[in-house]
């Protein structure tokens, strides 16, 4: 039986990506460890995303609050506003929106960077200079995205909640301490933990897909642009798929 061409391409690519990911687990835990490069990547990937993540987080919290208020007023539960907004932010909106922005900024830059290193033979040059380019380029970047995204999400959550506080105070008058008390009353461990755990997977997916697309870039500048572009598209899609899996898993584990 002949498979349709696009399906065949999809399966081939999925296989390639799995093999590329498998290699990560084989290479990451064996010396030599590229600590210096890993720390440099953490700084680049984490620190440089801060302003963007901060601004979007703030706006998200503010807007979400303003959008939710009228409905809550209709039902006469306006007092629940801080609790509702912070639950939504911590459990879903914060992780997913931050991860999507992260995919747009970091996924594309990794795809483009490794893509241009590939087509200008810099990856080959590393290999002949006594360096394992997979360890030096891929392992360090994937480890850095996996570690940095959860931190960024926590920061973004905090800023969003502050945005929500300002949002609440547009039409009401709540003190910061009362607001915080309301938030922490509703939140418990089973809200925060699954949300944090899934962000590690989001970070891993963004790094891995960016590296995979860059590492397999085709010759020419279009090839590099294409790598950056498909890295963002594929990792955004992957974030939603992982989110869907995560909600099923927490459901089964009774963490809801």
């Amino acid at each position: 039986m002949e498979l349709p061409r696009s399906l065949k391409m999809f399966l081939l690519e999925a296989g390639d990506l799995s093999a590329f990911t498998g290699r990560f687990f084989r290479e990451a835990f064996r010396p030599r460890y590229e600590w210096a490069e890993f720390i440099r990547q953490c700084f680049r990937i984490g620190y440089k995303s801060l302003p963007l993540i901060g601004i979007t987080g703030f706006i998200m919290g503010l807007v979400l609050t303003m959008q939710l208020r009228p409905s809550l007023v209709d039902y006469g539960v306006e007092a629940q506003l801080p609790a509702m907004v912070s639950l939504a932010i911590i459990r879903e909106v914060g992780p997913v929106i931050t991860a999507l922005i992260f995919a747009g900024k970091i996924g594309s830059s990794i795809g483009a960077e490794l893509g241009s290193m590939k087509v200008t033979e810099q990856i080959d040059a590393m290999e002949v200079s006594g360096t394992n380019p997979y360890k030096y380029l891929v392992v360090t970047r994937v480890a850095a995205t996996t570690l940095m995204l959860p931190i960024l999400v926590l920061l973004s959550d905090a800023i969003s909640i502050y945005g929500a506080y300002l949002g609440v105070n547009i039409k009401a008058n709540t003190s910061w301490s009362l607001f915080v008390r309301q938030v922490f009353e509703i939140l418990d461990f089973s809200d925060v933990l699954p949300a944090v755990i899934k962000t590690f997977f989001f970070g891993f997916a963004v790094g891995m897909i960016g590296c995979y697309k860059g590492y397999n870039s085709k010759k020419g500048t279009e090839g590099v642009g294409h790598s950056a572009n498909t890295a963002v598209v594929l990792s955004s899609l992957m974030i939603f798929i992982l989110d869907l899996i995560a909600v099923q898993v927490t459901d089964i584990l009774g963490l809801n």
Partner: protein
Amino acid sequence: MQEQQQTYRKKAKYTDEVVIDIRDLYIAFGSNKVLNGFTLQLRRDECKVVLGRSGSGKSVLIKCIIGLLKPKSGSITVCSQDILAMNHDELDKMRIQIGFLFQSNALYDSMTVRENLEFPMRRHGLELDEKDAEGRVLEALANVGLEHTVDMMPAELSGGMKKRVALARTLILKPDIILYDEPTTGLDPVTSREISDLMNELHEKYKTSSIVISHDMNCVRTVADRIAVLHEGKCFAEGSYEELQQRTEKEIKQFFV
């Protein structure tokens, strides 16, 4: 035109010792048989040019020599050691002795010229203190006349300067053998000639043996001791520039127009 042609090399001064011995190399990508029984010997001190049309598998050939690609069959020995039987560590050690000048220079965009030159030294674990390392970097850059670029980024350099810095990086480990992948392609004629002369100069100075891939006939004429013509995956003919110039087969003649 002829008298301002480059300084020709004194021919046939190389020895009989074979440093690279390639036999019956076969490699294919899918159904595309790129090398199909290619055979070549490089002697010590010799500069051998491999001529071939674009896409004929010249880059594939030298990437096999340095172990970046694995041929399906055939043998490659460098200084009587079998490259294809080597494990990773042995290959790394061998690569210290083989310099590779990439067609696209392969300078690391994110590093300064100094860091680019230090990279192979550090990564190959050469035990050098700061002062020796700096000395080596400056010596390598002096060889190509670009000491003043040491703190610049590759993006700030012109095409010819990039090629020189790449050459300096290739030389920094003082290799016995250098593989040049189209060293003058994409450069203007004046710069091409400078690079060709520089290759000769460095060949004299460091007594390297080299394989040069090119179809720039001015460069070929300047640097070649002997020339091999790669055609349809095989070594079609071999000889000096003058010998091949006399040949009438169209596979050879096409290069000598």
